[in-house]
């Protein structure tokens, strides 16, 4: 998996992978204890972007460019998931403030 000795690229990609792992762990704390559902959706969105960055860094680390296809597919699926979750949030509890989903907020 590690192609050759500790070149600059491999050391930098290892450091990048470690920092991204710490970032995902920190964001996971917010995902667990976020007080509202919106906080959890924001944390999930950030985790998805961080995983896309992780896959890109792993493509550099393993010198295998086919991981970039994984990054494309994961970015697409994460965007669809975020849109679906926020639409669900908007439709489920938005009735209390009288907001139909297509209403424009004209002053």
């Amino acid at each position, binding site marked *: 998996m590690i192609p050759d000795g500790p070149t600059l690229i491999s050391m930098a990609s290892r450091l990048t992978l470690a920092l991204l792992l710490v970032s995902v762990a*920190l964001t996971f704390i917010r995902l667990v204890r976020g007080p509202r559902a919106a906080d959890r959706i924001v944390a999930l969105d950030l985790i998805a972007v961080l995983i896309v960055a992780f896959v890109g860094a792993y493509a550099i680390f393993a010198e295998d460019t086919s991981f970039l296809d994984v990054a*494309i597919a994961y970015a697409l699926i994460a965007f669809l998931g975020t849109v679906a979750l926020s639409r669900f949030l*908007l439709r489920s509890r938005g009735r209390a403030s009288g907001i139909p989903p297509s209403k424009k907020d004209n002053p």
Partner: protein
Amino acid sequence: MNAIFASALMIVGSLFCLVAAVGMLRLPDTLIRMHAATKAGTLGAGCILLAGAVVAAELGTTLKAIAVIVFLLLTAPVAAHLIGRAAYHQGIALFEKTWIDELGEAMSAAPADPPGPGPVPEPSEDKQGSGT
């Protein structure tokens, strides 16, 4: 030279990602946390994928990495807008030092007119308070 440039891009991008995660943990409000998440997350991922494009230095791989960056840049504002709108309509508690709330003023000025037919005024500068 390429290796030094790509390594610097990777380190900078991962530091941006770390700043985004710390901001997600420490900032006081949902909308303020979205600021950290969308902006810094996209910039960090963009830097790391740009490093991948620099390392590979061939046409197909570079195009793939740039496609991922463009896709992230296109989808981040849309997702942020949707999440912010949903969060605001949920009635999240704003930070106590928030002094401007244009969407709330607009909603309290025109409460709950039905979305049926009628003279539709031209769309003005709304939804400014629900972004990042």
